[in-house]
């Protein structure tokens, strides 16, 4: 007998409620992250950052969002109408799905899957499709170049990313994010990130590349391709890409926190708090890196992936398998 549809135990109800919560979570975190990014950028550059709207400029992202919503949605002549408008939606929608299997807390599970990791990896792979569509659909040469870069970059970085994730999955013996988190402890030496730092490092580099963040922000490389794939997007079209970028960042940071930093586990604080603290620590690191480094060149980016990260990840995986085999 399946549970009542209105009760919280029904999987469909959980999914709907979870999705709504996720939308709220993404929206809220996107706004907070925009503020954090600008504030960090400001302080790194010896300026105060947003200041005038609200206390400490906290309301600045909201004002920005209102501005974006209020702008005209323009489409260049000769653009493919359907692809052009499908792209920003496609950028944003898969990311929200990725939030569902994230282990925020042992008791807070929008959708608990035994293959949650696979779901996240599959859906985050979809994100690149939106970049291709945006670049191709907008009938713009810069956009096209950006799209071409996005494809090569995404293909190159998914391989070491998967290998790094796999080494953790093999160590834990599970693809369930809850189980992987559960197998780690509350103290740093119990984290897979400390036990297997190479995989953690590879994952972090690939995460930055997957989310198109500096120094790997080649698809939108501002000083080379003006804005790359989203050159032609205005208003909320751009806004959705922007939000998707931040949502993507939260997802990869969430996965990193769950896989390598023991997720919700930690002393003194409650589960979800620890999880958010770890997620934001990784986000801060990504923001910090963005405001420090120049952008790498395209062939260097691919070289880094194929000549360094992929072999290292394979070696790491082999070591993990051997150790696991010896240990039983």
């Amino acid at each position, binding site marked *: 007998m399946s549970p009542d549809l209105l009760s919280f135990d029904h999987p469909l109800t959980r999914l709907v409620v979870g999705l709504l919560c996720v939308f709220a979570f993404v929206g809220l975190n996107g706004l907070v992250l925009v503020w954090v990014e600008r504030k960090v*950028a400001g302080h*790194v*550059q*010896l*300026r105060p950052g947003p200041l005038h709207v609200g206390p400490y400029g906290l309301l600045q992202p909201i004002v920005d969002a209102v501005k974006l919503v209020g702008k005209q949605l323009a489409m260049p*002549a*000769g653009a493919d*109408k359907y692809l052009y408008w499908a792209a920003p939606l496609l950028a944003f929608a898969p990311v929200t799905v990725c939030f569902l299997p994230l282990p925020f807390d042992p008791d807070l599970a929008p959708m608990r899957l035994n293959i949650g990791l696979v779901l996240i990896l599959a859906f985050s792979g979809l994100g690149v499709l939106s970049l291709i569509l945006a670049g191709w659909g907008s*009938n713009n*040469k*810069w956009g*096209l*170049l950006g799209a*071409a*870069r996005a494809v090569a970059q995404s293909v190159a970085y998914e391989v070491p990313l998967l290998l790094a994730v796999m080494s953790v999955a093999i160590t834990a013996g599970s693809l369930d994010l809850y189980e992987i988190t559960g197998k780690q402890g509350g103290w740093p030496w119990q984290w897979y990130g400390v036990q297997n730092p190479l995989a953690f490092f590879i994952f972090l580099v690939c995460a930055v590349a997957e989310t198109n963040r*500096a*120094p790997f*922000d080649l698809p939108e*490389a*501002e*000083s*080379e*391709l*003006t804005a790359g794939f989203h050159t032609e997007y205005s208003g909320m079209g751009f806004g959705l890409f922007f939000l998707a970028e931040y949502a993507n960042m939260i997802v990869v940071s969430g996965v990193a926190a769950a896989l390598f930093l023991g997720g919700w586990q930690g002393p003194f604080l409650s589960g979800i708090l620890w999880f958010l603290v770890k997620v934001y620590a990784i986000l801060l690191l990504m923001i910090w890196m*963005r*405001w*420090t*480094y*120049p*952008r*790498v*060149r*395209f*062939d*260097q980016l691919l070289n880094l992936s194929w000549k360094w990260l992929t072999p290292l990840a394979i070696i790491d995986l082999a070591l993990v398998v051997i150790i696991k085999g010896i240990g039983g």
Partner: protein
Amino acid sequence: MQAFDTAQLPRDPSSVRFEPGPTEDKLILSMGPQHPSTHGVLRILLELDGEYIVRAEPVLGYIHRMHEWMAEQKTYFQFMPNMGRVDYLHAMAWNWAYAGAVERLAGIEVPERGEHIRVAVTELNRISSHLLWWGAYLLDLGAFTPIMYAFDDREILLDILQAVTGSRLTYSYFTFGGVYNDVPDDFASRCLAFTKHLRSRLPMYRDLVTDNVILRGRCEGIGEMDVDLARRYGATGPVLRGSGAPVDTRRAEPYSVYGKFDFRIPAYSQGDAMARYMVRMDELETSCDIIDQAVSNLPDGPCSAKAPKTLKPPKGEACYAVEGARGKILVHVRSDGGPKPYRVKLRAPGFSNLSVFCELARGTLLADAVSILGSLDLVIPEIDR
């Protein structure tokens, strides 16, 4: 929605030679005049094969302001403020080139104190130009923060120059026979404090940027140019010194009191973007050395010779070359004895430096082209004049 017909657009004469044929599988890309890394209003037509550049051609003239023509319409004095606008980043050097040419023509001697002040402010201005280039070049390469640090240091320098000249960017400080007004009393001490501060900041610049592995990857081996190529195109300044020829107008044709000072002329033989980068970074130190020497024994006396209120130089012509932040600046003035110059020719170093770009960019990636363009340190208003 109406179909977009490119045939209805007006033909762009500069891109005619770039029209692809029906079978050519190349992408024609117009980079600029509004592009984040073609500083100002440079337009570059690119023929791309994938992301590789097959052909590159700069299109100039978007900010042509007829400075040379203006010179013929104004008196010698009245043309002075134009010089600050030719190359707004190293206005002092242009001031100097024009003032020097007219002084040579009219036979005006500059007093010792005036020369020392001229050297000090020109070198200060060179530092400000290099600092801005440094920040902007890193912006081109995708690093956003260094420009803020550079501007932080540049601010101190601009405060000194503001106290001297009253303006912060487009100086018109030189007059025929010296400088517009004498420097304030604390000028020397402020300059010395600034050079000390800048020297203490240079290690930070090196750690943050110069040693950075990503930057080295973006600069080393990019846009390699040998001395012959540089000479053939008439490249000067850091671009020439970056390809191994230690040629500097301050040393090669010593003007003013530069012969008195002891300074090193940095040169790197690699000829790539990194070499040009290193030359400019070393020049920051060189300029600091010169400033120290110029202000630490500032001679007494007048800062300016008495020049006639209406200048009518004798018939004839004169050239004056100075070393600007971007290379050799030369002003050629021809007088017919009247109150207005008959002809003024401005030789902008950026123009020659830009011409090398076509050769350097061929066969590189689009990202490299941005790196090369930045490493040439172009100021478009100077090129277009």
